[in-house]
């Protein structure tokens, strides 16, 4: 598994460096977008993973689900920080400022707050069983904000953020070559997440 992952990652990174043409007017640094999109994607996946395992824990009361939920959140926290920082760098390149509370930036910042709150809560409760229950409940409570962040915030504030890859019109405005590499990067990062999630020591 690790061998495959190393080769796949190396190939993807090489493709991004050597095959993808530099973005017009932005240069090579703009290739950070190939890091930004996958990390942002995984931070959202990890959030739902954590909530999913929290729900499984509450149903079954088996502590292994609590461990998985906690691990997803820890990994998600790292990925969301990476996504935020890379996004801020890209934002400086294209919009001229690191931060301006664009709806997407608001959403990702709330995600940081939720992950941070969840992990703080975990560290504040000492009893293992109570900690599992309490953090599972909080994890599910925080999922309720998702419809607000996804559907309502973009309506309340004006956005400069590029359309997501799967935009509302349902068409892809990308070259095939770039699209393939981007999808490879997404798949690669998702496998890295799953690999880390299955590690015992964390």
């Amino acid at each position, binding site marked *: 598994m690790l061998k495959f992952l190393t080769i796949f990652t190396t190939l993807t990174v090489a493709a991004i460096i050597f095959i993808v043409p530099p973005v017009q007017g932005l240069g090579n640094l703009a290739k950070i977008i190939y890091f930004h999109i996958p990390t942002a994607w995984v931070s959202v996946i990890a959030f739902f993973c954590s909530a999913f395992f929290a729900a499984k824990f509450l149903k079954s009361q088996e502590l292994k689900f609590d461990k998985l939920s906690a691990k997803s959140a820890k990994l998600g926290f790292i990925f969301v920080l990476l996504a935020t920082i890379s996004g801020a760098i890209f934002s400086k390149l294209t919009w001229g400022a690191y931060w301006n509370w664009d709806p997407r930036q608001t959403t990702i910042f709330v995600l940081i707050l*939720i992950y941070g709150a969840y992990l703080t809560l975990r560290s504040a409760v000492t009893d293992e069983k109570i900690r599992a229950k309490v953090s599972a*409940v909080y994890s599910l409570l925080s999922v*309720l904000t998702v419809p607000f962040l996804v559907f309502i915030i973009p309506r309340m504030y004006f956005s400069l953020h590029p359309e997501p890859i799967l935009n509302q019109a349902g068409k892809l405005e990308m070259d095939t070559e770039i699209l393939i590499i981007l999808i490879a990067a997404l798949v690669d990062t998702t496998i890295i997440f799953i690999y880390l999630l299955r590690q015992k020591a964390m």
Partner: protein
Amino acid sequence: MTEQIATIFWKDFLVGLRRKATFAAMMMFALTTMAALSLSMRGAVVENNFLAALLWIVIFFATSAGISGTFDDEQAAGTLSTLKIYAAPQAILFGKMLFTLASLIALTIFLLPTFLILFDCSAGNIFLLITTVLAGVIGFSAAGTLTAALTTSASVKGGLFPILLFPVTLPIFLPTISLTESAFNSETFSAELLIILLSFDAILLVASSILFDYLD
């Protein structure tokens, strides 16, 4: 069920009257933050959108100071388990929630006029302002009661409550600020925002009720 809710509400009310510490701390917290803000501005003219944000920041943190200990006293006295034997979990939740709501309404009855006077702000559309504040504190008490139940078992409590409450109540927080601004300006407000606010109140109420059952 209704009887149990009423009894728990009444019990908390009597305990609150006898030991005024929590309530006094919440009021003084609100007064202190308002004084700190008003003093540091030294009479500068502030835009209404900024004032609306300030008002809700004060309400949010005063709420945190006031209701974070909703279950703590009983946990410390060791009577929480007795309470759980006496009443159904849902009755405990809604009894506590009603009491929280009552304290928050009392808080805003004091806070709102003081704020308007200190910041020399005229509430243009008073009806909208009251509706917004009421809808806001309903959401805060729904999410706050469940959050208070979560933090009760934490060993380190300092600052934990607002950290947990803020992301969860963001869907309440942002629309209320926009609506309050409209009320200050007495301009036409967005009915859509009011609907969003009320539906999140409902969502938080239902979710707290469902999730509370898993806590014991």
